[in-house]
């Protein structure tokens, strides 16, 4: 097997662990959302779920004998990365907006 960018040391293990971590994060945010039904929590859960997919695809294409090559996955991976970034940014923006409103309500009291 040729030693390339995608098959170097830990090129497979690193995105694999990141995918598992992102899955756990998505699950935790989903649990929070299920409790309070606060929109930003759902967005963060979605963002982490997409990141999980993103790193899963990177791991798949970095394996010793991948069924899907990196070239085949390039477009979906890029699209997932952008979607995850947008969802996480929007989630954090909504979280900050919520904090801002709480602060205003508290000051008015």
């Amino acid at each position, binding site marked *: 097997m040729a030693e390339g960018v995608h098959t170097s040391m830990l090129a497979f293990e690193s995105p694999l662990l990141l*995918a598992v971590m992102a899955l756990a994060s998505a699950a935790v945010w989903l649990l929070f959302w299920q409790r309070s039904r606060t929109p930003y929590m759902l967005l963060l859960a979605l963002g982490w779920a997409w990141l999980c997919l993103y790193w899963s695809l990177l*791991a*798949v294409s970095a394996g010793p004998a991948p069924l899907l090559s990196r070239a085949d996955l390039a477009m979906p991976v890029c699209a997932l990365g952008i979607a995850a970034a947008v969802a996480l940014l929007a989630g954090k923006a909504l979280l900050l907006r919520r904090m801002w409103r709480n602060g205003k*309500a508290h000051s008015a009291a």
Partner: protein
Amino acid sequence: MKILIIAPDLVGVDAITEVRRIQQWHDTVNLYGTVTADDIYRACEEKAFDVLHFATHGGPDGVRLSGGVLLDAEDIAQFLRLRETRGVFFSSCETGRLASYAVRHGATWAISSEVDLPDADAWKLAAAYYSHQRNGNARDFVGAYTLADGGDGDYALHVAPTYIQELQRAAAIAATIPHAATLTRQEAAVWGAGLLGSTVALLLLILKLAGVL
């Protein structure tokens, strides 16, 4: 806790036991003997108290000071607002109306008697209440009242509606804080099993597609 005890010299009022008990546990200023409204005003002006404690005769229209002078609900509310006194304890008969007025006009809480109190027993609730409020529990007026009151309907705890609103607002904010939520054993088991299953499935899928398996 800083308490201003108002115990004027009136026939039928024996506040000695009550005052002694409160003095044991708290930092008190006692107005006894001849007590006028001006004495109370000056005491409230000089020092910020946590509680005004009235050990005297009372009724729906007010409490009695020396010479039978009536101190009405608005006078009491003014004393409370002077230095933001949080609580008022009426160890006096039929003071529900006064307490209700006090919590709408400055006080956070007020304790009143809803019946004619026998003078010999009037000190008991006060003693129990203040004993629960010592040792750093001064802010837990609900806890102290719950422990002290027998629930026979003789006394009532009045709480300011604005205070309740503040609590409700704080609770609503707390509900949006992720770590403020609780997780039961059953929920932890369900979510844990779900996460474990998903992780295993994801790993197997990745390993298969990557050609490891």
